[in-house]
């Protein structure tokens, strides 16, 4: 047991349960230090319906603006992935009315040209870099917009694989671009039009259609419970 006692991680924040003062949408509250922003909302008795989704940093529902003590810089975070600290001030971003273009991805004839019809504002980027600074996923959004415009769809699709569609890049854009939506279109076009069709997949689909595995299926499905268990054990 003595050994067990040495295997304890120090967590001063847990030992000395400290309360900090934070501001939620302009109103002061006391909450335990180090809890997440979303838990701070619950702690202060607020019902959360809009503003919470996966709680794992993937869905972008909890996009939040925050500022730390005495710092004029307003930053962005995902509320489920950010710990509160003393003097912090935050507000959850309301849904932003960005325009999403509608398209049938499969029937596009010239996806790189179509970008300018679907999102005519995309080439109007004025290089202010606010979108990149606003991205809680640390994507170089501005670079992505330019690459999209110049037709480098492959790079855009790779850069935006981390995008959780929180939309924080959109309200800051002085050219009214919704970079996440542009990137989503570009990534889908890259996948649907500019990526090689996997031959092995076509072969497997045909094999299944042609009944290549039927004999094996018949054998397996005719087995009794014990035979099947024994057979499973042989699969390595």
């Amino acid at each position, binding site marked *: *047991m003595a050994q*067990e006692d*040495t*295997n*304890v*991680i*120090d*967590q001063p924040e*847990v030992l000395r*349960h400290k*309360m900090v003062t934070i501001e939620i949408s302009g109103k002061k509250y*006391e909450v335990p230090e*180090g*809890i997440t922003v979303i*838990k701070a909302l*619950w*702690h202060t*008795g*607020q*019902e*959360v*319906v*809009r503003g919470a*989704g*996966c*709680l*794992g*940093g*993937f*869905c972008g*529902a909890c996009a939040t603006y925050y500022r730390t003590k005495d710092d004029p810089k307003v930053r962005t975070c995902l509320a489920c*992935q*950010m*710990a509160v600290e003393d003097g912090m001030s935050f507000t959850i971003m309301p849904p932003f009315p960005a325009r*999403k273009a*509608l398209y049938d*991805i*499969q029937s596009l004839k010239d996806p790189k040209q179509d970008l300018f019809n679907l999102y005519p504002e995309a080439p109007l980027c004025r290089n202010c870099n606010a979108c990149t600074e606003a991205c809680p996923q640390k994507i170089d959004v501005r670079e992505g917009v330019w690459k999209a415009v110049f037709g480098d769809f492959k790079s855009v*699709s790779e850069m935006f*694989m*981390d*995008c959780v569609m929180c939309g924080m890049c959109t309200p800051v854009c002085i050219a009214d671009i919704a970079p996440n939506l542009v990137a*989503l279109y570009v*990534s889908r076009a*890259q*996948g*649907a039009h500019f*990526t090689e*069709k*996997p031959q*092995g*997949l*076509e072969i*497997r689909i045909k094999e*299944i259609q042609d009944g290549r*595995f039927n004999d094996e*299926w018949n054998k397996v*499905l005719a087995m009794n419970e014990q035979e099947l*268990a024994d057979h*499973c054990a042989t699969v390595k």
Partner: protein
Amino acid sequence: MDIHALQQIVHQTRDARRKQTIPKFSPADRDQLIHKYHPDYRTSAYRPIRFGPNANDKTVVELAALLEGDSSIADNIDLAPHYTTDVLVVGGGGAGCAAALHAHGTGAKVILATKLRLGDSNSVMAQGGMQISVAPEDSPVTHFLDTLKGGHMQNDHELLKVMVEDGPSIAKWLIELGVLFDRQADGNLHVKKGGGSSKPRLLTCSDYTGLEIMRVLKDEVLNQKIQLLEFCAAVELLSDDHGHCTGAIFKDLDNHRHVVVAAKSVILATGGIGRLHIQGFPTSNHYGATGDGLCLSYRMGAKLDHIDTFQYHPSGAVYPEQLIGALVTEGIRSEGGHLVNANGERFVNELDTRDVVSSSIIRECEEGRGIRTMSGRVGVWLDTPLLDAEHGPGTVEKHFPAMMMQFERFGIDISKDPVLIYPTLHYQNGGVKIDANSETNVKNLFVAGEASGGLHGRNRLMGNSLLDLMVFGKRSGLTAASRAGSMPQGKLTLQHLQRFRAEAKKHGSPSGVISPMILPAYTRKEPERTVNG
């Protein structure tokens, strides 16, 4: 002790461990381990359900209470429909989107209702990948056998055969919609090996597989202009004189009004139950994972299957506090990450099935070989830096950008330091019993995805959930849509609820529990008056 000091043993023993091979358990040892340590076998956590289609079957107490719970809907509510549709899909995750898109594709009128936003789901968090037998040395039959073995031979054979055989055409559909799966140099799909699988079979989009699929499916639902009812929580189903399903009642969470939808068929794609925190476990699940579909179907007379078994994912974060319960993807172990106890020893083959690995972690911790945190949690190390040592610097960052970022936000570099993990409540293995078209024993009531049961047996294999969602989402959507043309809209009544209430009354005093739960009660009711120094 300082966390870095405790981590040293992992660094010190790394080279020695790399030379070690840990054999998988024999079937007998594996059964013994699971029976002793897996939470599914903690009998005190279970009780029989008192009435309904699964009367006397045992399940966890948290779920039993909800299944027996009463509806929030009064018998005399006005059932004049606000909306009428051919197919009503409840749930906006992977199964819901797949169902809506396929039903819409046949020309049927579709409404998709979800209690949060379109896409807010567990699907979006799936990191490990999607199992589809595309490799030449693999086959649907091998996929079938691996899954059966992982499910303790309890899987429904018909559902399973359908899933593994539909898999490749699902991959094709997703690729045509623009999903960017990882590729090999020759353009073929890259496959990774997952726990419990004999062949590499996981299709991945780095560690964002679920997010990538959901970004595309959500976008497609919007492009197809499928009618959405967001922030609308299903609170009751509707039935006709024959007991067939004919629609649902929702509560609009913005204005608290009831919304009645008449539908020829209803597809419940409402997901799992992690937010019930069964046995006090933290969870990897999304905010809305409260088992709503189970309660709604159960009141309607649908039979549940394997409702006593849950998946505790081996690697939920234990430290830092803010990430408790969050998932550390199994992909780390797929690429060779070791599980290491406080003595610096490995104790399980890391690629064994999830139930085996979780049980062994619980064993290590219960026998005093875990690492504890001051908040009273315990865990073992997952040696993430090993991946850089094994495959070259930058491997962790390149293959697991989502994980890197999640821990980086709290000042932890998982490519340099191991992470502390313990099993987290991850998945509901069972659910509403369905047939190969995803229909329940209640006519015109379909259930797809995690809310359904039978396919995975008593333990779901890694990567089979994303495929389940797509295959049974599609099948339910196509079957429901195909009926719409030849079927009139049935009457809207609450006869099933009256029957259920009568039965509940026979079984004693009401518990006062209202189900479905809709959202977990995390909001603190009583503010603290004093500040602890």
